């Protein structure tokens, strides 16, 4: 039975559970809702949940374990001599899976019947060609042992999914029976539904944490491979970034300092642009602008946030870059390229304005009017009130907004490639071309890559470092916000 049908069936049984639970509760109370511990619908939900949740969990576990067991039992069917010299058991196993899948397709298209498949022989049929027709391309002729393995693989899968259907339905019915027998007027259905909801919420939060953990672990794993091949001191303290492009290894200098410097420099300029403008815009919008102006200007600023960064990159490349070069860099003798840290920083700052302004605006609006009244009532002007009461009260939120913007700036790639170039350099002059960590991650992973050379693996070390930096930034933000809260709440 296909999975979807099975799921629908479970839901149907759960529906029955809802009705039975509800009705049984009602009848046990003689139809008087007041005598029930919980509202009738809670008994219904309890019935449905107790029916569906264990069944679905059981099914998920089965689906996780089933492929592993079947693989193990199929793999022993392949004799050593069926494995070609330039191949491995894993590769043969993947052939087995593909043949099985191809056979499924043949049946689905009606080209073969189930019994005909059982009679297939490599000697009589060209299986490779037959499978090729349904879009399953195989690398070599199919050997008898491999075909056998594929057939037994299919058979095992069929039995297993049949048993799964039976067991899952059994669990669902069992759950239904249990829910119904437990239901009576004094059963605390409300509490048990609450408990299920609580578990659901907890699962969701654990999932988010586990994903983060998974990301970190996978990065750590690859980064460890890198550090096995390249000394960490040279990576963290190296002042030059010069990977050899041949990929043959050796001669590469992979120091992160120039990249970090570029990242921090560009981000700093971006924040210098975005924070004052964004904050002032937010103050104007929330404190001074009338409702009409607000309704008009706020969405307009937020449009900035919707522009794809590549478009900002183009803007940097063809407008801001040449402009800065012609009016600042060249007249002052600071440089003559249009790619510069300044270009990327300014454009990125423009991109970040709506982040800062929109969040700060919400936060400033959330400051209670009574605080403003208190200040006005003491004879303070509007701007004194904003500076001394509103902004300090909103500060934790504003710091959060700024750090969020900083994280965006550090992770930004497109604007840097187009605005600041891709040359790693350690320089103080903001009109020099420089580049950032993210740009180099991309360039090390594009083109011909060999996942065993340090030139490629360095991308993971760079990514991990970046992750550590943004994590540190977020922790700092939390710390500041919390400290501030403690002081003022």
């Amino acid at each position, binding site marked *: 039975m296909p999975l979807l049908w099975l799921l629908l069936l479970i839901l149907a049984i759960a529906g029955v559970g809802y009705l039975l639970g509800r009705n049984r509760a009602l009848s046990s109370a003689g139809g008087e809702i007041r005598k029930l511990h919980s509202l009738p619908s809670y008994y219904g939900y309890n019935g449905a949940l107790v029916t569906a949740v264990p069944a679905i969990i059981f099914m998920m576990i089965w689906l996780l374990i089933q492929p592993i067991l079947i693989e193990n039992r199929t793999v022993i069917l392949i004799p050593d001599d069926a494995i070609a010299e330039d191949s491995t058991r894993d590769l043969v196993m993947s052939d087995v899976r593909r043949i099985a899948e191809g056979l499924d397709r043949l049946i689905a298209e009606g080209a073969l019947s189930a019994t005909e498949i059982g009679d297939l022989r490599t000697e009589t049929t060209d299986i490779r060609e037959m499978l090729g027709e349904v879009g399953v391309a195989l690398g070599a002729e199919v050997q008898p042992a491999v075909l056998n393995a594929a057939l037994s693989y299919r058979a095992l899968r069929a039995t297993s999914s049949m048993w799964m259907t039976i067991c899952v339905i059994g669990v669902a019915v069992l759950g239904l029976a249990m829910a119904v027998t437990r239901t009576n007027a004094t059963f605390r259905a409300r509490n048990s539904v609450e408990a299920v909801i609580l578990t659901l919420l907890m699962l969701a939060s654990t999932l988010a944490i586990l994903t983060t953990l998974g990301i970190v672990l996978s990065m750590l794993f690859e980064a460890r491979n890198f550090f096995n091949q390249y000394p960490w001191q040279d990576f963290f303290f190296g002042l030059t970034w010069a990977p050899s492009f041949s990929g043959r290894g050796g001669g590469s200098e992979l120091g992160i300092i120039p990249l970090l410097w570029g990242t921090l420099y560009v981000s700093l300029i971006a924040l210098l642009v975005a924070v004052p403008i964004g904050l002032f815009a937010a103050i104007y919008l929330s404190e001074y602008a009338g409702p009409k102006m607000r309704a008009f200007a706020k969405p307009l600023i937020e449009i900035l946030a919707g522009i794809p960064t590549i478009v900002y990159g183009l803007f940097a490349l063809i407008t801001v870059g040449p402009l800065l070069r012609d009016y600042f860099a060249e007249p002052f003798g600071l440089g003559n390229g249009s790619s510069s840290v300044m270009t990327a920083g300014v454009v990125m700052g423009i991109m970040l304005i709506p982040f800062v302004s929109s969040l700060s605006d919400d936060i400033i609006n959330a400051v209670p009017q009574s605080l403003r*009244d*208190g200040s006005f009532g*003491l*004879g*303070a002007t509007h701007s004194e009130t904003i500076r*001394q009461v509103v902004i*300090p009260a909103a500060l934790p939120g504003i710091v959060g907004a700024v750090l969020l913007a900083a994280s965006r700036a550090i992770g930004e790639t497109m604007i840097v490639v187009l605005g600041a170039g891709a040359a790693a350099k350690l320089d103080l002059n903001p009109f020099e071309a420089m580049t950032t960590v993210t740009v180099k991650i991309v360039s090390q992973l594009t083109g011909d890559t060999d996942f065993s050379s340090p030139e490629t693996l360095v991308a993971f070390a760079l990514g991990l470092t970046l992750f550590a930096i943004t994590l540190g930034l977020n922790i700092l933000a939390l710390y500041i916000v919390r400290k501030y809260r403690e002081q*003022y709440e």
Partner: protein
Amino acid sequence: MNDMRFTERNVDSTEIKIRAKNVDVFYGETHAIKGVDVDIPEKTVTAFIGPSGCGKSTFLRCLNRMNDTIDTCRVTGDIKLDDEDIYDKRVDPVQLRAKVGMVFQKPNPFPKSIYDNVAYGPRIHGLAGNKAELDQIVEKSLRRAALWGEVKDRLDAPGTGLSGGQQQRLCIARAVATEPEVLLMDEPCSALDPIATAQVEELIDELRARYSVVIVTHSMQQAARVSQKTAFFHLGELVEFGETGAIFTKPEDPRTESYITGRIG
């Protein structure tokens, strides 16, 4: 009403500090204050009493133009402070509010330290020449608001961390520190225990020597104890205004009588 103890009834001054004539206030369509005339004398405590929602706070907020901060609010009529129309275009509401201070119905300490809360007004208006003077102003104000003893060891602690009643006294200290000529107090003792209430009432009496004080209260006893003049509001109208003793002993309007004897409200 036997438990009422009246303070000396004689109004020390006959000079009028605030003269309100024919004041109407609208919140959008709601007519919250209807043609109110009140003269608030100098160096006197005037009490506003009346059932909840009758417009006491609204009228109080007119006297220092705090209603300007509410978009929907519209004030008409004529309010003069020292014979100068406070709604005149030439009057700076900021300047006005420095002269007419206010303690709000709900305590609203700033998210700053206790010290900075009290020092807020003096700093803005440059009342202290140096740190020592400022320290003095802060201490004196906190003492007057009967809060000094409780907070003198933790002036750096946040004002928002105080209890409700302490916050209310902090707001009183904050208003007093600015040395206003008129002090508007909107139920300043609503969250205070009898001891703190007595101390605040003492402060009000002390302030009377130099300023005029307007106090909104729901406690008849308090009105009788601290005020020399009482105004009774009902449904946006000023029903009766006169000497406190007269209002409480022989009210002219039947509504006033019902209210102070506990039949309206």
